C-alpha cells in the first residue's frame, strides 16, 4: 500500500508553480524524510496530502487510494503543521478534550501517560509551554489518534538541539510501538540517517530523488582520484556532482555496490548528508524509482 501517491501533481500560487508535475509513491511502513531547499514545495505537497490545499492539476490519493481530504483520509492521517499551531489560550487538558471530541479514535490514557512522562502539566495554558513542549504536545495529540500515517511539516525547524533530539526520540518510540508510517519534511539535512529509512528530495516543485535510504546509499559512491583525470571519468560515468580539493577530485557517482573503482581511483561509501547535499547542488540530476520498483531497488537514470 502507498500511504501517499501523486500523479503529475501541480499547484500554482498567483502565477508561481509551487509544485509542477510532481509524481511520487510513498510505500507504507517507512519513516520518510521529505527534504529540499526552502521553496521547493514541501509544505505545499504536505498540505495537499492532508486536504488543506487543493491542487491546481494532477491527482493525489492517500492510505491506499483514499482521496486526500476525504473523511476516511482525515480519520487515518494525523498532521502536525509547521510550528505546531495549537490554541494558545487553551489549557493542555482542554486541548486534549478538543482533540478527543474531534476524532473517532482516541487513546486518552496514552495521551495522559505521555504528557506525565514529559512533565507537561495538564492545567498549563498551551501558550505558556516552551517550544519543545508545544511540539511534544502536538505529537502527543497526533499519536493519541492512533493514525496509520503521521505527517509532520518541519517538526524540527524551531527546536533547539536538545528538544530536537527528544522530539525525534519520542517520534521513533511511537513508530516502534504502533508501526505507523511517518512522513516529515525538513530542510535540516543533518541527523536524517538516524531516523529516516526512506528519502524524497524535492527541488523546484519536482521530485529529484526518491527511494529507501539503504538503496540510495548502495547506489551511489564517491570516487577519489587525480583531478587531471576527472574530466575523462565524468564523460564515462554517471557523475552527479564533483568537487576538487588540491590535486584530488571527489566525484559522487551512481554505481553498483559490486563495481570496482577505475584504476587509480578509490571508491568510498557516501553519507546520506553528502548524498542529499550533492543532489541539492545539482538540481538537474535525478534518481527516481523505476516503474516496478517502489522499494527503490532499481534506479532509473534521467539526464
Amino acid at each position: 500500500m502507498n500511504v501517499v501517491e501523486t500523479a503529475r501533481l501541480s499547484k500554482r500560487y498567483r502565477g508561481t508553480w509551487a509544485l509542477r508535475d510532481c509524481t511520487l509513491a510513498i510505500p507504507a511502513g517507512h519513516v520518510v524524510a521529505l527534504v529540499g531547499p526552502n521553496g521547493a514545495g514541501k509544505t505545499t505537497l504536505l498540505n495537499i496530502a492532508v486536504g488543506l490545499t487543493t491542487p491546481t492539476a494532477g491527482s493525489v490519493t492517500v492510505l491506499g487510494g483514499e482521496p486526500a481530504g476525504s473523511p476516511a483520509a482525515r480519520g487515518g492521517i494525523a498532521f502536525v503543521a509547521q510550528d505546531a499551531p495549537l490554541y494558545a489560550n487553551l489549557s493542555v487538558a482542554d486541548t486534549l478534550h478538543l482533540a478527543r471530541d474531534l476524532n473517532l479514535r482516541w487513546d486518552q490514557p496514552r495521551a495522559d501517560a505521555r504528557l506525565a512522562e514529559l512533565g507537561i502539566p495538564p492545567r498549563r495554558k498551551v501558550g505558556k509551554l516552551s517550544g519543545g513542549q508545544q511540539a511534544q504536545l502536538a505529537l502527543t495529540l497526533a499519536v493519541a489518534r492512533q493514525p496509520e500515517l503521521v505527517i509532520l511539516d518541519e517538526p524540527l525547524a524551531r527546536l533547539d538541539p536538545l528538544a530536537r533530539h527528544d522530539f525525534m526520540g519520542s517520534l521513533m518510540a511511537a513508530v516502534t510501538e504502533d508501526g505507523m508510517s511517518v512522513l516529515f519534511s525538513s530542510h535540516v539535512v543533518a541527523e536524517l540517517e538516524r531516523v529516516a529509512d526512506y528519502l524524497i528530495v524535492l527541488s523546484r516543485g519536482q521530485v529529484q530523488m526518491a527511494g529507501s535510504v539503504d538503496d540510495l546509499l548502495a547506489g551511489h559512491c564517491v570516487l577519489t582520484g587525480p583531478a587531471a583525470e576527472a574530466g575523462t571519468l565524468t564523460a564515462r560515468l554517471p557523475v552527479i556532482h564533483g568537487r576538487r580539493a588540491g590535486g584530488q577530485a571527489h566525484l559522487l557517482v551512481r554505481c553498483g555496490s559490486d563495481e570496482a573503482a577505475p584504476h587509480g581511483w578509490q571508491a568510498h561509501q557516501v553519507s546520506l548528508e553528502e548524498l542529499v547535499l550533492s543532489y541539492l547542488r545539482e538540481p538537474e540530476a535525478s534518481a527516481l524509482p523505476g516503474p516496478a520498483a517502489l522499494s527503490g531497488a532499481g534506479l532509473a537514470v534521467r539526464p
Partner: protein
Amino acid sequence: MTALSAPAAPGAVRAHRARIRMRWITWRQHRTALAGVAIMLGGCAVVLGITGLRMQHAYASLVRGRCPLTGALDISRCGRLEGAYYHAGYPLTGNVLLVTVALPAIPVLIGMFVAAPLLAREYEAGTFRFAWTQTAGPTRWVVAKLVGLGVALTAASGAFGALVSWWLAQVDPLASDSRWQPAQFGLTAVTFAAWTVAAFAAGAFAGALIRRTVPAMAATGVFVVALTAIAYKKLDTLLVSAGPVIGRTTLLGLPVYQPGSPPVTFMLGQAVTVSVPAGSWPLRSWITGPHGQLIGSLPSRVLALNAQAENRWLAGHHLVLWTAYQPPGRFWLLQSVEGAAGLLLAVILGAATVLLVRRHTA
C-alpha cells in the same frame, strides 16, 4: 464503543467513543465572546426592565382612569400626571430616539466581536491546520459553530427584541401606532433577531473571506451599519407602505373621539381629523369631490368656520374622504416578511462561508 466506521489502526484500538462532538468545543472557544454578549444584552435588559416597570406602574396609578379621553379634558392636570409618568422612565423616555438608534448597534458589535474573529483568528494563528485536519474535518467544524452560535444568538436577541418592544409600548401607551415607526419596526423580537443573526453570518463570512481579524472586524462593522441603515430607511418604509387598505368615508361631519380604545387620528388641513382603526398605520389621505375629482384641501374659508357650520358645509358638498393605512392585523405579517429577509440573508452568507472554507481546504 466499537462500531468504528474508520479503518482500524495497527495495534490495539482503544476507542474512546465513536462520535464527533462539537458542542463543548463551540462553548469552550466562544464562551468569552458569549459572556460579553450576555453582559451587553443583560445590562441593557436590566435598565429597560426597571424603567419599563416603573413607567407601567406610574401609568396605572397616575394616568389611567384619571385623565379621560372623552369629555372635558383638564389639560394642566393631565399634563402634570403624564409628566410624572413620563419621568418614571427618565432619562430613557426623554431619549427614546437615542435608545432606538443605540440598540441597533448591538448586532453590529456581535458581528464584529463574535463572528468576524470566528474564522479570521483560525487563519491568522494557523490553528485551522490543526483543527480542520482532525477526523471531524472543516465542514463539520464550521457548520456546527455557525448553527450553534447562530441559534443561541437568535434566541437571546429575540428575547431582547421582545423586551424592547414592551418597553417602547410603555413609553407611549396612548399611541398604539408607534410600533410601526421605522426605528421601532426593526426592534421587535422578530426583526431584531433576524438582523442579529444576519450580522453574525456577515461577520463569519468576512472572516472567511479576509482571513485577518482586524480587517474582517472593520469590514463587518461597515457592512452591518450599511445593512441596518438600508433596513431602517428603505425596507421598513417599503414594507409598511406595501399594499395598504383604502378606506372610504363620506364626509358628513367631523369624526368624534370614540370612547374606549383611543383611535389613531391625523389631521387633514386643519380641522378635519380622520379615524382609522386603533393600532393602524395611516399612510395618506385625500378628498374627492362629487364627480370624483381630487380636492387638494378644504377651502380656507371653510376651515375658518366653527364645527357646526363646517359640518353643514360638508354635508352639502358630497365630499368623499379616502384613507390609505395598514390595519393592525398586518403588523406581524409584515414583521415576518422582514424577519424572513434577514434570515434568508443569514442563510446565504452562512452557506457562502462554508463554501469558502471548503474551497480553501480541499
